């Protein structure tokens, strides 16, 4: 399966049996979601074959898959907020007579479906937008359970659920299993999987590592198989001598995503931030940067004893902070505009004289960074949407380097970037640290962090679950810390 420019899955074999709960696990980006989306007809594979009940199975769309009895409950819920719970449950097959919805019949069906996930008290006519995230997830699951399916795919279904809700869900899943449904269960909550699943398939870098009966794998085996790969292909970071504290975060809290996060980053240091998707890393960076307002906690900059006043990104940038966002296209770039305008955006105040801006004045700084970062382009007038991902990332990086910020925060700086440009960006990060800048790098690629960082913070379920200095870490240790916040279902957030 090719996805964009990057091949996501490489010849994965998978066999799912009726009456079995099959767990699919792997690191972020291992290919779990891509694989399940192919099964559910959201994506079409570029190669390979699928068989369902012995017959060839090539779903072109979600609808095809559902007609074959394959249904997927999505991680990001595809419910329509303005419609009622009942309508959402049976949206594709509303009971009707000549187009007129039979409301009594719909209500009866919806009530029955909701009872299966323990939502007995929920009025089926409640608009979905009025529900909490946990209830929404249960409605999504109820929609899956209500269909006559031979294969039910659940992607991280328990993330927003409370312990009793999870218990009820497990009872229902075991019931379905008895009725002969095959269930593919995607999760990174290993304890749940060990309780629920019959067998486990582990994916790594788009390849299948193996499939085992759940009883044959210990927790350590699972982690080793998730991360196990050679580390020899990337250069190790040289020794470093960190300077003064440049960024200190104390008790930062925002909703359930960021809960009392505290840490320091020193000048000349690269601090990595690891964690699973949804562990609160992006939210932490955004709260520090003033993009979202934290509910509690303080940020101290450049060794100051007084908390910095950061109420907006403008305040943050004024005080020498920079944030390279995870989503370059939506939150970083001005896609149809020239490279030059993208690069100088944050520095226009310094380039201009009394607000007056001669385009010639932008040439010198733009050319300097085009050359320094080796951006491959026709000229500085080329719109950035014509550049490759790596070159786009260099343009965003240039915007902040031109501005001369002291604390740089990078959110997934190498996502979707080919290996060549990746190394160039690594070299730049190291060079920036050598110049005495403080760097905080969020990445889902543990190898990347282990190569780059001087220290690694691991976030799990909104908290810092561990801090490791170079030499103390192994991939297994980091992955264990990343999973630690999700191990005990009793502490699950609602």
């Amino acid at each position, binding site marked *: 399966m090719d996805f964009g420019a990057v091949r996501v899955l490489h010849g994965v074999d998978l066999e799912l049996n009726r009456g079995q709960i099959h767990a699919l696990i792997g690191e972020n980006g291992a290919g779990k979601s891509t694989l399940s989306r192919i099964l559910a007809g959201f994506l079409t594979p570029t190669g390979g074959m699928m068989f369902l009940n012995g017959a060839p199975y090539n779903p072109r769309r979600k609808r095809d898959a559902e007609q074959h009895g394959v249904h997927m409950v999505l991680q990001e819920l595809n419910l329509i907020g303005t419609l009622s719970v009942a309508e959402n449950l049976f949206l594709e097959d509303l009971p009707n007579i000549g187009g007129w919805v039979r409301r009594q019949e719909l209500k009866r069906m919806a009530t029955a479906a909701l009872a299966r996930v323990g939502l007995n008290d929920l009025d089926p006519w409640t608009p979905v937008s009025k529900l909490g995230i946990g209830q929404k997830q249960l409605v999504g699951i109820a929609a899956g359970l209500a269909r006559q399916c031979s294969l039910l795919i659940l992607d991280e279904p328990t993330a927003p659920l409370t312990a009793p809700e999870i218990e009820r869900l497990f009872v229902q899943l075991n019931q379905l299993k008895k009725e002969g449904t095959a269930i593919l269960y995607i999760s990174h909550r290993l304890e749940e999987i060990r309780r629920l699943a019959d067998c486990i398939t582990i994916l790594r870098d788009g390849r299948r590592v193996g499939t085992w009966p759940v009883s044959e794998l210990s927790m350590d085996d699972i982690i080793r198989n998730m991360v196990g790969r050679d580390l020899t292909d990337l250069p190790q970071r040289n020794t470093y001598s960190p300077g003064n504290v440049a960024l200190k975060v104390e008790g930062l809290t925002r909703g359930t995503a960021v809960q009392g996060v505290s840490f320091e980053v020193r000048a000349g240091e690269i601090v990595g931030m690891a964690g699973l998707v949804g562990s609160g890393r992006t939210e932490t960076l955004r709260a520090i940067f003033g993009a979202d307002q934290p509910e509690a906690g303080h940020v101290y900059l450049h060794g100051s004893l007084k908390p910095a006043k950061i109420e907006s990104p403008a305040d943050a940038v*004024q005080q020498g902070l920079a944030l390279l966002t995870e989503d370059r296209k939506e939150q970083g770039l001005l896609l*149809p505009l020239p490279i*030059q305008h993208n690069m100088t*955006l944050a520095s226009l105040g310094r380039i201009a004289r009394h607000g007056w801006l001669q385009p010639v004045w932008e040439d010198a700084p733009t050319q300097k960074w085009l050359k320094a970062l080796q951006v491959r382009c026709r000229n500085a007038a080329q*719109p950035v949407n014509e550049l490759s991902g790596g070159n786009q990332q260099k343009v965003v990086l240039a915007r902040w380097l031109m501005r001369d910020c002291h604390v740089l925060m990078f959110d997934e700086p190498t996502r979707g970037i080919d290996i060549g440009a990746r190394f160039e960006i690594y070299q730049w990060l190291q060079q920036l640290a050598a110049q005495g800048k403080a760097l905080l790098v969020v990445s889902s690629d543990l190898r990347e962090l282990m190569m780059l960082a001087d220290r690694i913070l691991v976030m799990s379920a909104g908290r810092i679950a561990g801090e490791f200095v170079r030499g103390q870490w192994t991939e297994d240790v980091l992955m264990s810390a990343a999973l630690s916040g999700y191990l005990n279902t009793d502490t699950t957030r609602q």
Partner: protein
Amino acid sequence: MAKQSETAIPRPTWARWAGEYGGLIGALVALIVIFSLRTEHFLSHTNFLAIANQIPSILLVAVGMTCVLIIAEIDLSVGSVLGLCGAVVGVAMTQWDWSLPMAVTAGLLAGVICGLFNGLVSLAWRLPSFIVTLGMLEMARGGAHALTRSQTQYIGSSIEGIAGATFLGLSLPFWLAMGAVVVAQLVLTRTVFGRYMIAIGTNQEAVRLSGIDPRPVKLAVFVASGLLVALAAIIDTSRFQSANPNAGVGFELQAIAAAVIGGTSLMGGRGSLVSTFFGVLIIAVLNAGLSAEGARDEMKRLVTGAVIVLAVIFDQYRHRASGVQRSA
């Protein structure tokens, strides 16, 4: 001066200017040629003078509208605010016996206040400007009728001087509107403010996350639109020597049409005041030409509507050809 680097942005050349405005100028010339051939009196000094006297107020409104569209917002209230500002000037002079400078100041102030309202309300409550300015459209028109008790206010020759003054054979309002085009174009292309306008219209969140607060820029653009509308109102009041509470009905659509013919994107991030000037001219020439042909009003509207649609289709192709994707 050092030799320009290979990858530097090439300085504008005549070829690029032609590429930018060639299509619009070509369309304009074609219209003039067609109407000159088909009617006897079209190609005449008086006719062009008449067009030059007609366009200033709509041109001023269209300049403001183009700026608002560039930041990916819209101002539907311009026509009504024009009526309101004219009503303020008219009532101030006829009923309150204010002096001309006082009345003009009050008119300008009314425009600024309407712009402030549009900007502040949509920013403070994060409402779409479509809705806020739609509300202002009703409120300003209501205000204009309330002030004048729905009666046209006849001011007389005391206000005539503004529209009557001429320079190099063209009226003061014409030069004023041309000045607005030039100043706004310079602000857009040669100032930090203008760069922020384009950037905000392209991707407001990226601008915010680059440490730039988009709100002051957006507020200033709404206020500028209100001020330009007030100027247009004063010109119209002076030209007709009266203030009609129904003045400016439909101006919002004419202004949007002119901007769109000039290639301004309704999605924001792209536009030019010079192009909007040509857009206004094309509509004016089309109207004058059809009048000269003796076409009736309904026929004029039909043709003008078709021209707007054709212009946008043509613009799409032009941008696809130059490889620039739209920022949808």
